[in-house]
């Protein structure tokens, strides 16, 4: 276990980095550590954590904006927003069920570092799209600001978007500002049972192409003899919702008859999808997250053959979650070429025993390797 440094403020973070720079000590950057199973294990003598930097620093519902220090629990920000009838539209992905959790609450800093976005990304964009400003302690121990608290901010380089999803490799996020959005009055889902993968993706794509604004489109294949479920979520005002669900049901008639899920069961089901719960039955399995064009998704999964122990589709097929039985390479030898053939992008999200020796992230293309070397 490496030394743990927990500065109480941003200046403390910056000086901890500055000190590490002078002594050339690699440091691991951590929030609450609920996502630390992601990526290659970090070999560091010291861990700097943002967990003491807590608090919502700006909450202006009328301006649709919220700022919080990096160590603030995501739940705290969501609760503060909830009181104002607002939320983070990208539906932050919660990595705890995937990695088993460590008893801590995921933080805003971790959310930014991993660009953790959930099912609503198909309509609301990713965490990166809602992130409009950051304060960042760079690897030189300097504090910089990028972006601000308004969407329209065109001066200079948009380092905000670069920092989001950089896994703490480009700097330590100390404060983040997000665009927020109003929580719709209610939600409901349509469920069609028994579709095969290709047909399901076609149904989901038809729903996405409709004017009824689905905010979630997922397909959960059959598990243990249960029926496969193809799910479309709509969120809106009560009266609008009923009309849209009815119209969408008619539109999807060619794919099968749809059952309606009311607000609560719909919320429960999407809560599971948001946490990748359909894959989490066996904790020893390795988990891959693959982005691919929806039209190629079903064929891609079929091309993996018996490697796939469990899988499901989110983002109308644009995101495929795949669990494989544990092995020396977590199936990379089969999966990587298949991803390449499907022109997709794969990340090995969970494989505790082999993540030090397998390429966890999509191998880089030569041009980006070049700029990294500089």
């Amino acid at each position, binding site marked *: 276990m490496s030394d743990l440094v927990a500065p109480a403020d941003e200046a403390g973070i910056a000086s901890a980095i500055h000190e590490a720079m002078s002594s050339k000590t690699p440091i691991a950057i951590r929030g609450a550590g609920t996502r630390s199973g992601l990526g290659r294990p970090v070999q560091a003598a010291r861990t700097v954590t943002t967990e003491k930097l807590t608090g919502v620093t700006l909450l202006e519902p009328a301006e649709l904006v919220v700022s919080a220090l990096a160590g603030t629990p995501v739940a705290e920000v969501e609760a503060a927003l909830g009181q104002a009838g607002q939320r983070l539209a990208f539906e932050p992905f919660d990595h705890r069920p995937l990695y088993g959790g460590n008893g801590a609450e995921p933080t805003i800093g971790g959310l930014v570092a991993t660009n953790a976005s959930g099912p609503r990304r198909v309509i609301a964009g990713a965490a990166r799209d809602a992130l409009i400003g950051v304060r960042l302690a*760079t690897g030189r121990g*300097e*504090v*910089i*600001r*990028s972006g601000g608290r308004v969407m329209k901010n065109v*001066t*200079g*380089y948009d*380092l905000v978007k*670069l920092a989001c999803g950089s896994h703490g490799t480009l700097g330590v996020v100390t404060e983040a500002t997000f665009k927020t959005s109003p929580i719709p009055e209610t939600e409901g889902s349509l469920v069609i049972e028994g579709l095969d993968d290709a047909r399901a993706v076609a149904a989901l794509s038809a729903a996405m192409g409709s004017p009824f604004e689905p905010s979630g489109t997922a397909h959960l294949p059959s598990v243990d003899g249960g029926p496969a479920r193809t799910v479309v979520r709509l969120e809106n005002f009560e009266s609008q919702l009923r009309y849209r669900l009815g119209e969408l049901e008619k539109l999807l008639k060619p794919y099968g008859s749809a059952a309606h899920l009311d607000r609560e069961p719909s919320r429960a089901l999407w809560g599971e999808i948001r946490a990748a719960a359909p894959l989490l039955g066996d904790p020893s399995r390795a988990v891959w997250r693959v982005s691919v064009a929806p039209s190629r998704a079903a064929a891609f999964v079929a091309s993996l053959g018996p490697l796939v122990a469990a899988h499901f589709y989110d983002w109308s097929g644009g995101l495929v979650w795949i669990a494989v039985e544990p092995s020396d390479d977590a199936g990379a030898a089969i999966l990587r070429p298949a991803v390449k053939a499907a022109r997709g992008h794969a990340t090995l999200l969970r494989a505790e025993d082999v993540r030090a020796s397998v390429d966890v992230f999509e191998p880089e293309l030569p041009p980006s390797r070049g*700029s990294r070397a*500089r």
Partner: protein
Amino acid sequence: MSTQFNETELYQQMRVKSAFDPNWLLNPAKVFPLSFSAATRKAA
């Protein structure tokens, strides 16, 4: 630029440009105030 950003922030952004365009060949006079980028452009 120099109203909105301080020196540290401007240098950070110039280092980003240097990573992609190490010789500062692409629109060298744009975005960054010339007085700020002069030294970096000369060194490139």
